[in-house]
């Protein structure tokens, strides 16, 4: 399926970019006329994925995080990737309350929050090469008439 719109963004793994990334994602996704709640779901999930890339992917180093958003008729696919250290055991990392950094007071709930607020979360990772998290969500705007026809 071809996306109706797409954007790509690259930014440094600085914590001040967490807010930037979630605001940009929400602004782009708002073209699909989602509800305020759905938009907040996207902001929360993006914030979790970007935070993971900063804390776990790059740890104390600064690297590049890439975010790709693809809009379809009524759904969005958001890919957030880093070229950081990767995840050894994805299944373990996705367990609720599991964290590799308890000393940093990480709650271990990042993936669980992503899964709760999005329809589907896909994680691909290779130790030493990086991680890509893809978030999928279909909006209820599909059931409401669109405000304006796309040109």
């Amino acid at each position, binding site marked *: 399926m071809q996306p109706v719109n797409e954007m790509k963004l690259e930014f440094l793994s600085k914590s001040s970019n*967490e807010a930037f990334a979630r605001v940009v994602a929400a602004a782009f996704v708002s073209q699909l006329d989602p509800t305020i*709640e759905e938009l907040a779901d996207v*902001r929360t999930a993006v914030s979790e994925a970007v935070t993971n890339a900063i804390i776990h992917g790059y740890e104390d180093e600064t690297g590049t995080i890439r975010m790709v958003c693809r809009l379809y008729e009524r759904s969005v696919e958001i890919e957030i990737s880093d070229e950081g250290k990767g995840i050894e055991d994805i299944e373990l990392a996705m367990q609720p309350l599991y964290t590799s950094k308890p000393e940093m007071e990480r*709650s271990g*709930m990042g993936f*669980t929050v992503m899964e*709760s607020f999005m329809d589907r979360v896909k994680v691909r990772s290779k130790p030493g090469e990086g991680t890509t998290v893809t978030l999928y969500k279909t909006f209820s705007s599909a059931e409401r008439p669109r405000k304006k026809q796309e040109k």
Partner: protein
Amino acid sequence: MDIKFTNRGSTLIAAFSGELDHHFAEYVRNKIEREVIKATTRDVIFDLTGLSFMDSSGIGVLVGRYANIRKLGGKAAIICSNGRIRKILEISGVLKLMPVYSELNDALRALSGA
């Protein structure tokens, strides 16, 4: 992100406003910690009413502070009316540690044991 403190007897009320994410987690943690260790503080109420955004980084902050408050013999409660933030508190198990109220008076009453 801002945090303001008021005292009601030995209860410290920490009122959050803005967006709480990983970027602000350490700032908030240090600010609360300084107040919690004061001899005048026993119980703590985290008032999240003014937060427009919180992700799981906020959970780490709350649970970490809760552990310290308990160590010092105090109790803690949360005030939250935002549905999404409440859902994050729920799925992360925070509601099992601290009761959540919609109104400050309810939280104060609960902590005083009335």
